[in-house]
Every structure is written in structure tokens, then in C-alpha cells.
């Protein structure tokens, strides 16, 4: 997105597309909100971003993705490795994902965690595996969308600065 069709140059290089990009960003966010992928907590995060922490949202979500990746991997191991899974540990992991997700406003992931917790309370292995699958699916979707979001944001900030295409 953001390419001028004829020239195939990124809009931001042309210094034009800032508004479009902003529109894109808003559109994307609106979509995510509408889908319930994100909730108002994400907006709070954006509000926290200020001069002292200009990249706050990006930093937080990066931490989130990194940690969640680990947790999901651990969960998979816990559920598949041994005969009898350690449901206490599973619960702790799920709790943590749930906490982080709610902190950044990842609503659907959080809901998936709630479901996961319920199943793990029953020590239902199959149920847990399914819940994990759902969790991973939601996680990947969010990850992609947020990456997209940050890309646009980056382009937009560049576009805002670029008034004249630079020679190199």
C-alpha cells in the first residue's frame, strides 16, 4: 500500500502520502477495533506516548510479542512433551499472556486466554491443545496487523518529514 501506481515509488518518498497514510492507519485501527482484536486499552497506550517516550507503543508491543512468543512456545511444550502436563505451570503461563494482552489491549487474545484457563482448570488436554491453537491463531493475526500498523506509522512519519525527494 501507499505506492503510486504509475511511478511505483512509495508515497512517502514523494512527500505526499502523509495524509493517506494517516488515513490508512486510522482505517486499520478502526478495523481492528471493530473486529474486537483491540480494545480501548490500546488507545490508552497511545495516550501514554509523549515526548518523553516517543516510541512507547512500539516498544511495549515489541516486548509483548517477544514475551508472548516464548510463552506460547512453552505452552506448546508443556502440552505436547510429556504424558501428564503440568497444569499449574500452564495456568501460570496463560495468566501471564492474559495479563500482557490486557495491558496492551489485545482483546481477543485475552478472551482466548480466559477460555484456555477454563479448560486447563479441567485438566482437559485436548481442550487445552485446541485452546492453544486458537490462542496462536489470534496471536498471529494481531501480530501481522500490528506490524502493518507500525509500518504505516513509520512511513507516515517519514512522509511528514519528506517534503522534497532526496537525491539519494
Amino acid at each position, binding site marked *: 500500500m501507499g505506492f503510486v501506481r504509475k511511478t511505483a515509488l512509495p508515497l512517502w518518498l514523494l512527500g505526499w502520502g502523509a495524509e493517506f497514510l494517516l488515513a490508512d492507519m486510522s482505517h486499520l485501527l478502526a478495523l481492528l477495533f471493530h473486529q474486537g482484536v483491540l480494545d480501548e486499552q490500546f488507545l490508552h497506550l497511545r495516550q501514554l506516548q509523549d515526548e518523553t517516550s516517543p516510541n512507547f507503543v512500539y516498544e511495549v508491543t515489541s*516486548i509483548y510479542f517477544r514475551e508472548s512468543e516464548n510463552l506460547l512456545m512453552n505452552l506448546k511444550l508443556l502440552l505436547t512433551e510429556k504424558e501428564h502436563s503440568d497444569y499449574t505451570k500452564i495456568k501460570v503461563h496463560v495468566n501471564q499472556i492474559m495479563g500482557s494482552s490486557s495491558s496492551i489491549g489485545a482483546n481477543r487474545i485475552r478472551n482466548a486466554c480466559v477460555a484456555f484457563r477454563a479448560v486447563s482448570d479441567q485438566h482437559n488436554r485436548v481442550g487445552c491443545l485446541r485452546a492453544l491453537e486458537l490462542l496462536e491463531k489470534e496471536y498471529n493475526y494481531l501480530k501481522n496487523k500490528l506490524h502493518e500498523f507500525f509500518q504505516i506509522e513509520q512511513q507516515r512519519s517519514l512522509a511528514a518529514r519528506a517534503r522534497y525527494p532526496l537525491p539519494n
Partner: protein
Amino acid sequence: MTVEGNGRGGVGMRDEGGRDKFPTGMRVLAVDDDSTFLKVLEKMLRDCKYHVTTTNDGATALRLLRENRKSFDLVMSDVQMPEIDGFKLLETVVFEMDLPVIMLSSYGDTKLVMRGVYHGASDYLVKPVRMEELKNIWQHVIRKNFNSKLKNDCPNLDKVNDREVGVVGNMAASGDLPGKLTKRRKEQNEDDEDEDSEDGGQENEEPSSQKKPRVVWSVELHQKFINAVNQLGLEKAVPKKILDIMNVEGITRENVASHLQKYRMYLKKARGFASESKDPSYIRLASLDKYGEFQTLTGSGRLSSNSSLPSYSAIGMLGTFNPPSYLGLQGNASSGVSSPNYLQTLNSSFTKAGKLQEVSLPANQGSSIFQGVPTTLNFNNIINSSIKVTGNNLDMGSSPNGLQNSVYSGMSSHVFTQGSQLQPQNASSVEVTASASWQGVTRYSNFPSATLNQHTSTNLRGNFNLTSPDTCDNLIDFSSTGAISGTLEDSRRDIECDGGLIDNVVRHVNYGLSQHGKDRHRNYKQISSSTSALVPANGASGSVSQRMTQNGTAVYSGVPDVSVIPEQSNLSGVHHHSSVEVSYIDHMTKCNDLSSLEHMKPQGSIYNANYESFDELMNAVIKRDHNRETMLMDGDMLFDASQLGSCI
């Protein structure tokens, strides 16, 4: 202790620059294995202008804290962490380092919260945490210091008693309560600091490890007390001498002291009332607004005491006499701490939209902080047995939870009044367990009416033998002043009860009460035609006696006294007040064929009589009970019954 913003008393700001700007610069240590959340939290805390240190690891946190205890003011910790048990960490920090700890969790279920409270948490926040919540966390620091300060003051009963009585008296005289009370309280606290006041002294005298059994002021005991006081002369009666004369085992000087204090307050009140005009418009009194009707009371000018004793007029329910003010006031303030605390809480309850000053007791004390509750119960007890004052109430001070008295919010007042309606109960020594039970009650910033009802009802059930015809007298008129809104839930967050939370009970009551209108008047009328069942405060309807166990946990015992409940008891407390009133009416009806409250005339038509003095009233009441019961009342009337009308 005054909140001077500089956090004196141990609040973190050690550096000069930050001193005056508390809560700015408050030093927070945040512990959570969730780095994402930690980062967000850190940013939010920084935005609140706190100093933040974060760590993923509980062990690191402990190390940081141990290295320098004074380096932090507040700790926030997740309770479910993989490597270290959040609750253990919580306990360690609270007890070893005496810092307020706020729990964090993704889950907010009751059990977890309860556990947290038991482990000493000052608060419990559910993720995601909002900015608004963080803006107020500094209160826990202040509160903790405040409580510690109170507890550390050494007891000095006599001095404190006299002074407190004096203070209370002063306050009674002044019309402008809230500010003055608060001010006086603060002054007193400051004085107390220097003079080994009894504020919290009771707690020192009875460290949590030595919970004494509550003294129940039975009729006989009280009689002895009265005899001793009369023998010595009221002016010269000091607890030590009284104790000697009484020559009873199992009572400590503190018990006597607090009882004496209450008695003095009561007398003061009674005398004050005796001189009031005799307008028997107790119904008018009934129109307390949900804040305990202080306004009404003060407005009417009937109460000689300041509005801090609103209950008295409020009690008007049945237009009974007003000795309660004495009781009410003192009921909670059994210990030296009581008066000022109580009054203060009363004031604060009125002044700050019912937000009562919270007193938090350390977790291991097992006493929960409850606001505004119990006074009435005490009162009830006292009145009921024509002075069957349960030692519990009176002995609040002597318990480690002496502070709890202060927690009683303004509701106490009307609780008292309501209590006053209780006829002296023959048999059971009404235990002031009510107060105890309140200890377990969650603190809620609302008005007493709700709690009162709850407690009173429970208490009533438990303590009074409601099944007997006499019990109709015992029913407390709950005409709640409406208020307690269902803030129990809200206040749960603020719960600082460390032991025996009886928030369920309170909740029930509150819900029921919150639906209560302000108009007692109306309620009464409604009651006469309503058939709502008497709703016990909690699930255990009927004779639920709340007892404070050694560690302050309120224990409900007893089986619902079905006979008391005219109809299906609505345990959800929806119609609490009306139930209470109805049940009262029912009882009265049973007893006296009364059809409506206004026409209620208990035997002897006490309510319609125009008693010149409280004494007469008391006599009448007692006589009536005496006729009915086997309760033995000596000639001495313990209370000067103020004129019925003037009670209002």
C-alpha cells in the same frame, strides 16, 4: 496524624525536596514477571509523578527491600508469578518491612482478593490497571503510617479517657462538626503522640497475640459498676478504684475505663436531652438522610450533642429515648481511641460523602476495619438489657482492634437510636459482638444505615431471644437512613480488613438497605402494611450471633431464629429495612396488638408517655421488661432516661 503531605510518620519522602510534595515522588517498587505490563505500569506511575523501580523477579525485589527498608514507600506486586509465590512475597513485605503492598492480578475473583487481604494486602488491582486507580494508591502509604502511629501510642487510660470525654463533650457542644472534629481529632492525636495517649494504646496493651476474651457487661456487672461509681461519686470515679470496688475477676482496668467513658458520655447526653424540648416527633427524626441525618439532627437542634451523634435523633424510630448517643458514641469508642476516632469518622462520613476514614489494622490483628457499623449494636445491647452492655463494644479499646471503633462511621448514630428501641432484653447478655462482627465487615464508605441494619439485625438475632414476646422490643428499628448503597462492592477494593471479613453480610445488608429510601417516615408507614420479612443481615437469618473470635474473625453462629422472621426471610436483603421494620412491627403487634408504628404502644405505652426524665423512661422500659421477663433490675437506673420526646 495529619496528612501533611510530607508523609511524616514514615512515609517515604526522606529527601527534603520531596517532602512537601507527597504523593509526588512516592517511591514505588513494582514486581511482576510480565514485562509488558510492567512497562506499561512503569510509564503510568511515572506519569503520576512517582519514582518507580521495577523488577521481574520477586527475589530481587526482596533483596532491594532488605537492603534498605526505607528506600520504598509502596510495593506493587503480581500475585501469580512463576518463580516466587506472590502471596508469600506479599506477606513478607507487609510484615517484615511494614510497607503497604498492592496486589495486582489479571483476575479479580473474590477468593483471590480475599486471600490477598488475608495476607496483608492494602489493595487489589485488576489488570489492566487504569490511571485513575494509580492516582490514588498513595493513600495506602498514608493509611499505613497512620495506623502504625496509632498503634504505637502508649495507652494511658485515665488521662485519655478524661481528655477524650472532654473532647467529645466539646465537640458535642460545637455545632460545626466536621471540621472541628477532624481538627480536634488531629490535635488530640498530636497530643496523644506526646502524651502517651490511649489512641491505639489499647492495641498496645493487647497485642494481637494476646487477644483477650471480650468482656460482656451483663446487668449484674453493670450494676456493680454503677454501684461503684455511685460510691465513689461520678467525678471521682476512676477506673482503678472502680475496679477495686467491683472486685470482679476477669475485668481489666481498660474494660472498666472504656465502660466508664461510655457511661459518662451517656450521662452527658442524657442530661442534655433532658433539657431539650419535648417534641415527640421521632418520626421527624426518622427522616434522616442517608448520611445519618446529621443535618436533620443538628437542624432540629434537639440534640445537644453535635451532629456527630446523629443517631440519637435518628433513632427516633420509635421515639425512644436517646441515651444511645452515649452508647452510640461510646460504643465504638470503647478504648481511648474511640471518641475521637468515632467522632472523626462520623464527621468524615458526613463530610466526605460518606467516605470514612479508614483504619487499617495489620493483617495479623485479625480485626477488620469496619466503618460505621457497630456502634449501634453496642447501643442496642446496652439499651436492651437496660444496660446490658456488652463488654465487647465497650471494650473495643482493649481489643487489639481498638481502632475499629473509630471506624464506625456516622451510622453508628442511628444505629444507636435504633438500638435504643430495643427493650431491655432479658436474657441474653447482648454481646457486643456486634462490634466484633463488624470488625469483619468490610469497610465501606457508606452509610451506616445499611451496615447498621445488617449488623443490628444480625446482632439482634443473635443476641436477643427474639422468639419470646419480649423480643419485639428487641427488634431494632432499622429504618435505615437509606443509605448504604451497594458500594460494598466498590469498597471491597478498599477493604482493609485483615480478618474475618464479613463482607458478604454487609453486602447483603447494604443491598437491601440501599434500596431504602431516605424517608423513614414513609418506611414506617409502609411497614405497617408491608409484609416483608425480616431479613437478617446475612445468610444466617435469625439468631445469628456474630462473635469475634480471638483473632477477630467474626463468626456467625446460631441458627436462624425463624420465629423472629414473620415471613419468608429475604436473605438477599432487598427489603432489609422494611423487613426489619416490619418485623419489628410484627413483633410489636404480636406483643401489643399494634397495627402501625405510630400507634405502637408497647406495654406501658412508653412511647406515648411523657417522661420527664430519662430515668423515668428507663424505669418504665425496665419495668415493662421486668414484668415480662425475669430480668432483674435493681432500683438503680443506669441511664437517665431522657424524655422520650427529647430523645428525638
